[in-house]
């Protein structure tokens, strides 16, 4: 525990994902995602974490900083720049072919190594990514960093060297707190992420993006495809859902009757 932590070094992890609104297809031959025409975007869930970090920095107004960290192919630089345009101070990009194909464990090991080197007081993450949707990385990072993980936070405050959050539950919330340094994962209900301003976009061009390779992380274990503990052995495409029946309802009773008949056919009723 640190007696006094001010200003804070806040670190936000961001991931690049295929555009959420694009109708994605799988190439039947390669079983890989057809990337043509599918844009890469900042993972929408990470924007809540970034917005929460920026709001915290603005509220503290004591010289606290926000650094974004991303494990991404070098082509992801533009997306990292968007985070800088939103208001992050600088960025760390970990790009290396040796990291490609990392499973959750490998990703947590590599990211934790990069984060550790930053000596952050507060690490903020989204709750999940829109492509992998595991929601496991925040907990894994907290464990690997050896710090408390306060997950599913819908509000965050920092005072007297502690972070206190409202953690969402199935039908309400819990107030939980822990000493810094700590990790917080931020939910969608926390805020409305800002759009980068023109000034922000211009300013982002001058901000530093530190490039790291796998060798810079000081890893003692193999990650990437070869080091994966969860090894991808098959990718299959499920049968496509065909167009079903379309019927018109003359009135409410008629519509309801047609649904009930259909459900009886399918033995639901």
């Amino acid at each position, binding site marked *: 525990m640190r007696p006094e932590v001010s200003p804070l070094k806040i670190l936000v992890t961001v991931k690049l994902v295929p555009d959420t*609104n694009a109708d*994605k*297809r*799988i190439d039947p031959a390669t079983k890989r*995602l057809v990337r043509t025409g599918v844009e890469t975007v900042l993972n929408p869930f990470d924007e809540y974490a970034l917005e929460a970090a920026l709001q915290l920095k603005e509220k503290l107004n004591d010289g606290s900083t926000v650094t974004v960290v991303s494990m991404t192919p070098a082509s992801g630089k533009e997306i990292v720049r968007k985070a800088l345009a939103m208001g992050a101070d600088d960025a760390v990009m970990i790009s290396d072919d040796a990291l490609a194909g990392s499973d*959750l*464990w490998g990703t947590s090991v590599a990211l934790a190594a990069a984060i550790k080197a930053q000596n952050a007081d507060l690490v903020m993450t989204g709750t999940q990514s*829109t*492509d992998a*949707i*595991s*929601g*496991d990385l*925040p*907990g894994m990072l907290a*464990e690997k960093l050896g710090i408390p*993980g*306060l*997950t599913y936070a819908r509000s965050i405050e920092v005072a007297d060297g502690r972070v206190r959050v409202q953690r969402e*539950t*199935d*039908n*309400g*919330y*819990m*107030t*939980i707190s*822990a000493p810094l340094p700590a990790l917080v994962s931020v939910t*969608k*209900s926390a805020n409305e992420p800002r759009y980068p301003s023109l000034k922000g976009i211009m300013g982002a061009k001058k901000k530093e993006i530190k490039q790291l390779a796998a060798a810079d992380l000081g890893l003692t*274990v193999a990650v990437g495809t070869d080091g*994966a*503990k*969860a*090894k*991808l*052995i*098959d*990718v*299959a495409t*499920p049968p496509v*859902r065909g167009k*079903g*029946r*379309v*019927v*018109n*309802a003359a*009135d*409410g009773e008629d*519509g*309801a*009757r*047609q*649904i*009930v008949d*259909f459900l*009886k056919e*399918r033995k639901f*009723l």
Partner: protein
Amino acid sequence: MAIQNVIAWIEHKHGAVRRVSLEAATQARTLADALGGKVHAVVTGPGAATAAETLKKYPVDQIHVSEEDRFLDGAVDALESVAKSAGNALVLVGNTMLGRDVGSRFAARLDCGINADVVDFKTDGALAAVMPKLGGLVITTCAFEGDYGVGAIRPNVFSAKETSGAGEIVQIPSTGKASSITVEDEVEEAAAELGVEEASVVVSGGRGLGGPEPFTTILKDLADAFGGAVGASRAAVDAGWVAHGHQVGQTGKTVSPALYIAVGISGAIQHKVGMRTSETIVAINKDAGAPIADFADLLVVGDAFAIVPALTNLVRDAKAAHA
């Protein structure tokens, strides 16, 4: 040596066991039998002893219990000690908020593989987990490498079956450690209800409903008639008509109920990926050309405000006739 034993982590609230944990305990038996190992259950926190009584009805060899109240840490520490003493173990958690927290920390601590949103397991050859990815666009299979692993199972996919022959209760020794996280209070804002991920019938509403009121009236009544849950599209959640916890879709929850009823939902891709693995999809929409027509098993074109209440009455009658 490969994984042989299976440990079900049991999520409960003051002793009331979450259904997905009973599914985990039942699936643990199937897997352990195939792998030639034993089934353990780990249940911690206030009410653990009560939860353990429920578990006696499920096919578990040993039920490890600790009443110690240490948020998250207690569960992870207990799993670690049981896994290490059993050796070569797969931990099953429900793919819920707490299940992910506990499973992910365990995986990082033991440096093992974790597979999330599991809908099936393979035991012919290396133990592997089967998971839909990219919103059900692909089905991936991932093998567990090493002595330990974690599988976060999708609720409502595996069955929970009671059996005779109660498991042996084993007390987990106290660690004497304090939790790294302090729980200051817990507030319930709504009545505890079945979540969309766990319901076998989900009745969802979208933009076409025009406001918040139908979510607590006609949709809720229909969901109740089925014993199901109310879901929502992103448009309805973003408009503030219903809480985010009900959202189905890419930025909400992924569900695969036996029956999904989409009311006033156009079926944009963002919604589709959250529910297209549902067994049967019925849509009610005033627009015959809505995208949902392309993947609903039945689309009824008409006025939802007239159809839904009428449907509720017919479902109630049908259920009463069977009762």
